């Protein structure tokens, strides 16, 4: 087990290193400068600015410098928001994104579970078709369509919840609900097919043959086993949803990270692009790791002692 951990962490670091390196060099291929007001920058100003930020050095030297700072935990300063450190930009913006994402995840997972379980149990009934249709709609309509509809009807027409802005808990609800639609649909479909598969397994038949109550069979054997693969899926889904979505954040004026990321690429804010990419990747790699661990606890067939089975 210990050896497995050390090995995994080693791999994680190598993965991260590759991502950092690839991003750094790919970013250099983008045209333009990270400085503001490029329309009016003269060649002389550009030379002065490049020298000031060390951008006149060969890319290899810039890269080594960046790695050196990174190892010390220094992500540098933003070019566009002069004086603001990248780490402070990430830390103030991740809160809202993560909160909305997690809330959406919880809403989506619960709704998805309920829908998925019921439609599996009532297989081929009207309810099953209904929830499958709902899931397909949820998957295929992008969340910003729901966002715009929710904002207009719940916010403007009914005035139940704030239209937008970030002013207290009530303003987190609409963006979370809009985001949760995709999660609900994904989870519902997944659970349904897993449940149907498990329901046909020998051990379910055995359990029933032993005379267990149907409720117990469903909860103890079917749902529990159907949940295992959902955990694998939920981890990466959580990361993608928690790190913020550009459109939802823009529509509801949420001060989140997703929007910042897109913006930094458009204006070529080198240090912010790097910082957020590293943050996303590290989070993703970590969550995948955690999922694998949880998986081990849930599924006794997996052991981490030697080669995985």
């Amino acid at each position, binding site marked *: 087990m210990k050896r497995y951990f050390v090995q995994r962490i080693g791999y994680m670091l190598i993965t991260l290193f590759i991502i950092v390196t690839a991003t750094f060099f790919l970013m250099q291929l*983008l*045209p*333009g*400068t990270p*400085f*503001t*007001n*490029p*329309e*009016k920058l*003269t*060649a*002389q*100003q550009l030379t*002065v*600015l490049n020298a*000031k930020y060390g951008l006149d050095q060969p890319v290899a030297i810039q890269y080594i410098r960046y790695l050196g700072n990174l190892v010390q935990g220094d992500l540098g300063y933003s070019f*566009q*928001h*002069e*004086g*603001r450190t990248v780490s402070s930009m990430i*830390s*103030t*913006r*991740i*809160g*809202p994104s*993560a*909160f909305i994402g*997690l809330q959406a995840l*919880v809403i989506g997972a619960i709704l998805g579970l309920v829908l998925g379980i019921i439609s599996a149990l009532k297989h081929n009934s009207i309810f099953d078709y209904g929830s499958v249709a709902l899931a397909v709609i949820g998957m295929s309509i992008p969340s910003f369509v729901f966002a*715009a509809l929710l*904002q*207009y009807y719940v*916010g*403007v027409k009914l*005035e139940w919840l704030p*239209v*937008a*802005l*970030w*002013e*207290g*808990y009530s*303003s987190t609800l609409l963006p979370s609900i809009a985001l949760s639609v995709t999660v609900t649909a994904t989870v519902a479909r997944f659970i349904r097919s897993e449940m149907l598969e498990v329901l046909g397994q020998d051990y379910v038949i055995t359990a029933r043959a032993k005379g267990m109550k149907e409720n117990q069979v469903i909860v*103890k054997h079917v749902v*529990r086993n159907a949940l295992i693969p959902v955990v694998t899926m939920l981890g990466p889904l959580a990361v993608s949803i928690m790190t913020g979505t550009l459109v939802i954040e*823009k*529509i*509801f*004026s949420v*001060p989140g990270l997703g*929007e910042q990321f897109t913006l930094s690429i*458009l204006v*070529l804010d080198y240090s912010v692009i790097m910082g957020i990419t590293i943050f996303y990747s590290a989070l993703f790699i970590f969550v995948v790791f955690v999922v694998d661990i*949880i998986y081990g*606890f*849930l599924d006794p067939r997996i052991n981490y002692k030697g080669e995985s089975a």
Partner: protein
Amino acid sequence: MGRKIRIQALMILMAFVLILSGCNFNSSESSSEGSGDKEGDTKSAGQVLNISATADIPTLDSTKAHDGVAFTVLNNVNEGLYRQDENHQPIEALVTEHTENEDQTVHTFKLRESKWSNGDPVTAQDFEYAWKRVMKDASPYNFMFVTASIKNAEAIMNGEKDAAELGVKAVDEQTLEVTLESANPLLQSLLTFPTFLPQNQKFVEEQGDQYALEAENILFNGPFKLVEWTHDQGWKYEKNADYWDAEAVKLDTINAYVVKDPATGVNLYETNKVDRIDLSSESVDQFKNDPNFDTILEPSMIFLRFNHTHPVLGNKNIRQAINMAIDKESLTDVILKDGSTALNGVVPKGFFQSPEGKDYRELNGDFNTGTVEEAQKLWEAGLKETGASDVAVSINISDSEDHKKVAEYLQAQLEDNLPGFKLEIKAVPFAQRLEIEKAIDYDLSLSSWGPDYSDPMTYLDMWVKGGSANRMDYHNPKLDELVTQARTETDLSKRYEMLLNIEKILLEEDAAIVPLYQDGTSILMREKIKDLIVHPTGASHSYKWASIEE
């Protein structure tokens, strides 16, 4: 199973608590909890204006600010030597008396007594300090000092001289002496620009690299104080009781909310959360007949650059034909519908008046307008002169929606109206479009230009040989000569005449570019809001005189 679910539930709960603690909701909500009676708060606040902003403020350090949002805030929380009035003309702000030497190169400004928000007096040293700081840090807007002809600014920018040698000196606490390279009729107008604001040296150095990044890390001496600033969410102004002209200020509170999506802005306006929003072109049709709908002319202009070294496009008749073959009115009224208007000159209308009070556009009229038939005649003449039979060229554009719309329209117009013309559209990211322009590696390029200061010159001196914004190898010695003369001409009427002639050379004589349209913004603003001034250059809004009439 129970244990595992419990572990998961616990993990989720922990994450929730952790994240909620880092959620930083807009503090105006949470602070009102402390004061108890929220309703009473807003009512007793008196005149309140609620507005939206398109982005967060990157920095409020006036020496480093480089964007419209920061310029507007700085203009309303700080006071410099001059400020723009309702007609965008410079009026005395901290200056009480202005004297100049005979050749108008040494200007002496007497300052009124006024205070920073920490109680320190605003002194001439504060100006000297801030101005030298701009040069020392090679700040984004340091070229404004060159435009203002401040002594040694250009040499400092080129790294030939030290920032300490800038032509500005505090003679005593209330007297500032500014030395110029040569007389500059635009000096006062330029001094309204936020880059020329003063800074309190002691305070700036105390704050170090945190200066002006939060509301409490900056000092105010203007009509308003910034009392709250929640990053990416909004900020709140309150009237500054210590402002020297506080009597003129009618608003008590201004709430600014960061709203990036125009459709969200409409919804916030409809629920009375904000009083003024910019509309996107999709919403214009919906609100066109609303009494609160208005269209504001903007001073930026969109135009076509020609590569003047191109064998065919280098021909004047060809360029003129292209000018005439485009129906600009249909472009703005049918395709764009966003409040923009057709433009047949390089200086936009509505902002730049002659000393006699006439608009620049009115005086110079339209250039290169004509029928399609006239365009075709010129086209044929041009083809004969260049020996070309058909012309296949490409247009360099940014990959934005607007640029694509415009380029597709131009393609249709030109290919229909000019026989043998083929236009290929090459859309690239904005930054790359600029690189291509700077390298003059294009045939035609769709460009835009916004003014740096309130004078036609900001659209005219960019066309001189080697000018950093020429970017098309255009050269006419007559134009260069006139620009040089106009820069130092102190007889304002004579100078204006020169400015009119520069445009004539550029467009009548050379048809060097194709002006397409002048930007416009459609807005919704409640009728109760009065005297909210929108400026064409520098800071875009002044709230100093604004009021609410219930």
